[in-house]
């Protein structure tokens, strides 16, 4: 390998496999600072694939860029919860301290400050990433320190460790988190009861997928086990991109063996020899520790060939990193991304259980689902089924953030009321809770008796609390811009619909809205819900429509007229003419009589 050629080194590290294109591009950018046309060319040549395919992947992901972002790239997490904690003011403060314009590289090429979608630190925000590494709990003092480090060009490894310290913040543990899990206990158990026995336990336990969709795990695994193919794969979906969610971060940081046990159990059931842990790019800081866990397990005989001495039980896991794309949380988009392509959801059917990673039968489950499966293996299906409600068995990890005294992870049996969670985390004056993130459900204070369960309020785990002082219009506007930024652009209704929604919300925010805009947004919701390609488009209008319904006053007070109001300022358009003619009398204004 030529040491002087970083691209060749990166391609070589991934075995020259075009299926690893995204990993290669991440590495090349880390080595060169950005992915310019020459780098794209070099990667294409080294892999022997068309450069246009390399460019299509490179331009899809938010964390990859064709232009240099300087020596230090700082991306502030832009979720509404970060904003409530002062993100906008802090970002402006840092820019001012460093004589910078946001979203532009400094004149000396040293630093770039911008925004990015929620980075999964809602319990310890406001937060940012510096060259991909998390900076939690930002305040003026820390930003002063950071500005000094950047000005003195201190390399990241020399920065004080406390700047990067991310704590698990588990506030309440239950079936999954309360008691320690012995690494390999679930694998041992599945060897005793066999794949069929494990499926029976799963059917008894009846868990539903924890990623949001709630598909029955036993059905998915059994179907994948039956499907024929050259190989079977287990994929762990750790692309935790839903704003306000950070429970997978904690599971992988503090309970990795439980998750990997679950993946290994799945491998035994479906007959997979290879597993993939798809980790969102924003969780780069977890990768090294996870690699160490995998390595330790190989040494302990819990991964690799003949696991626990069982002849033919071969299974190993590799980590694939994302690069900033919420849509990759959708399982078929995740598979596309894991195959090195842009993360656009596939046409389904077929589903991954028969046609998944590399076209082969694949089980894709959320991190928490694998943790549940491991516990079910150890404690049995009946134990699990006795927790929660009959339709929603087991527990749910909630990522609690926003206006409360004690944000963090709370694990409850399904069926817990929203009010109970609010009491436990010290949310005294809650006005609304966004359960499940922007694609979830907005509950007003009138609905706090409702319960967290698939049959009432389903959730992938986010629980964002908004106090009386918060403006729910701004919450919905933040979510709408998030969906616009994260739409993959494949289908018309989502690609254009999300932008139209953002435009309407911005028009309302500027005080130029009318009832016509509200009606248009209702109409867009219908089109996006019925015609979009995937869940992102289906739910992108939901925050607007729900807040419009539950907090109508926040919209109504922004309406300028009840009929139609144009987005542009008609009178403002006459300003040039007024300047040229030197007039500013009443008749030089559209609304004569109002100079």
């Amino acid at each position, binding site marked *: 390998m030529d040491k002087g050629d970083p691209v060749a080194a990166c391609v070589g590290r991934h075995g020259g496999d075009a299926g690893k294109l995204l990993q290669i591009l991440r590495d090349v950018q880390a080595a060169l600072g950005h992915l310019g046309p020459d780098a794209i060319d070099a990667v294409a040549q080294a892999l022997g694939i068309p450069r*246009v395919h390399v460019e299509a992947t490179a331009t899809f992901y938010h964390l990859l860029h064709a232009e240099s972002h300087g020596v230090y790239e700082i991306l502030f997490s832009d979720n509404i919860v970060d904003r409530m904690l002062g993100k906008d003011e802090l970002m402006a403060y840092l820019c001012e301290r460093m004589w910078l314009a946001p979203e532009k590289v400094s004149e000396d090429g040293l630093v770039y400050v911008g925004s990015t979608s929620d980075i999964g630190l809602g319990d310890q925000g406001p937060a940012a990433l510096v060259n991909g590494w998390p900076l939690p709990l930002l305040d003026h003092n820390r930003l002063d320190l950071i500005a000094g480090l950047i000005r003195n060009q201190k390399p990241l490894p020399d920065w004080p460790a406390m700047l990067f310290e991310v704590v698990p913040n588990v506030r309440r543990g239950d079936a999954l988190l309360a008691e320690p899990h012995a690494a390999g206990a679930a694998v041992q158990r599945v060897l005793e009861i066999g794949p069929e026995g494990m499926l029976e336990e799963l059917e008894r336990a009846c868990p539903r997928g924890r990623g949001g969709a709630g598909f029955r795990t036993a059905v998915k695994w059994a179907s994948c086990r039956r499907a024929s193919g050259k190989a079977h794969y287990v994929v762990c979906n750790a692309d935790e991109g839903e704003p306000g969610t950070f429970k997978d971060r904690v599971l992988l940081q503090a309970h990795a063996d439980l998750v990997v046990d679950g993946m290994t159990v799945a491998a035994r059931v479906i007959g997979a020899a290879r597993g993939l842990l798809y980790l969102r790019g924003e969780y780069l800081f977890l990768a090294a520790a996870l690699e160490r866990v995998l390595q330790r397990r190989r040494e302990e005989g819990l991964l690799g060939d003949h696991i626990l001495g069982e002849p033919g039980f071969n299974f190993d896991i590799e980590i694939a990193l994302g690069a900033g794309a919420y849509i990759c949380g959708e399982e078929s988009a995740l598979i596309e991304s894991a195959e090195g392509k842009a993360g656009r959801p596939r046409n389904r059917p077929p589903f991954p259980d028969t046609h998944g990673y590399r076209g082969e039968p694949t089980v894709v489950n959320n991190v928490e689902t694998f943790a549940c499966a491991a516990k079910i293996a150890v404690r049995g299906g009946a134990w699990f089924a006795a927790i929660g409600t009959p339709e929603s068995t087991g527990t749910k990890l909630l990522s609690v953030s926003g206006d409360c005294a004690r944000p963090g992870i709370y694990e409850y049996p399904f069926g817990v009321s929203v009010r109970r969670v609010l009491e436990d985390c010290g949310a005294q004056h809650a006005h609304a809770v966004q359960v499940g993130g922007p694609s979830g459900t907005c509950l007003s204070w009138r609905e706090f008796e409702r319960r967290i369960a698939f049959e009432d309020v389903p959730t992938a785990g986010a629980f964002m609390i908004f106090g009386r002082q918060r403006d729910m219009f701004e919450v919905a506007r933040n979510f709408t811009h998030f969906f*616009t930024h994260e739409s993959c*652009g*494949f289908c018309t209704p989502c*690609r*254009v619909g999300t932008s139209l929604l953002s435009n309407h919300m911005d028009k309302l925010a500027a005080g130029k809205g009318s009832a016509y805009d509200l009606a248009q947004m209702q109409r867009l919701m219908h089109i996006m819900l*019925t*015609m979009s390609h995937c869940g992102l488009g289906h739910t992108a209008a939901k925050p607007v429509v729900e807040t419009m319904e539950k907090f109508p006053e926040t919209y109504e007070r922004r309406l300028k007229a009840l009929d139609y109001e144009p987005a542009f300022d008609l009178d403002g358009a006459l300003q040039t003419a007024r300047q040229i003619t030197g007039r500013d009398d009443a008749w030089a204004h559209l609304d004569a009589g109002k100079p």
Partner: protein
Amino acid sequence: MRDGHFVIDGRTVAFRPGQTILEAAADAGVYIPRLCHRPGYAPHGSCKLCTVNVNGQPVSACTAKAQDGIVVENDTPALNDDRRALTEMLFVEGNHICPACEKSGSCQLQAVGYHLGLATFRFEHFYPPRSLDASHPDILLDRNRCILCDLCVRASRDVDGKNVFAIGYRGIHARVIVNAASGHLGDTNLDVGDAAAHVCPVGAILIKRHAYEVPIGKRVYDLRPIAAVALDEFRAQREDEGG
């Protein structure tokens, strides 16, 4: 895969094994509006104009397989109104210049607009800054008029075996990119004889020196509406396949 029958807009039609709803409907003389699909090409399912209700559930007719006994709603006022909205979206996200466009009268976007009765826009135009690439000696690429149907991508990859095009970037910034470090079409190996140079349903990829050759009144959709032309395209494709 089995053959069988299904009901579309109250009519019972037959389908052959493996056929999509769109194909089976076309065989039976039922037009389902679409822009990203072309007979003989792999279905893509992105424009969503062909959305129909199957047993009450919306699906893309170009990718969904026909199944025995399903009930399909297609030509209903509600679906056509939604399709009209999608067509409007395609217009407002780009910069379309129908009165001056070389493709006018032979453009599928325009013809589908007429078919759906699109008379005015309910959405505000984006007027996005988009690039025009005239670097190729014979072919013009105008991204202002592109609707991201992916047909040029598939034509170049699957028919020409060249991979000249791809869709790069994402969301509202998604755009056609070309296989050259310069980003210029003139630096690719696209040839004027390639399928990819002729497959564009709108005025985004045009052959130079052939504009306005067909007089108004004689252009494709001047003569017959898109519903009839589209069904003919399916028929021709079937004859090509000897079906």
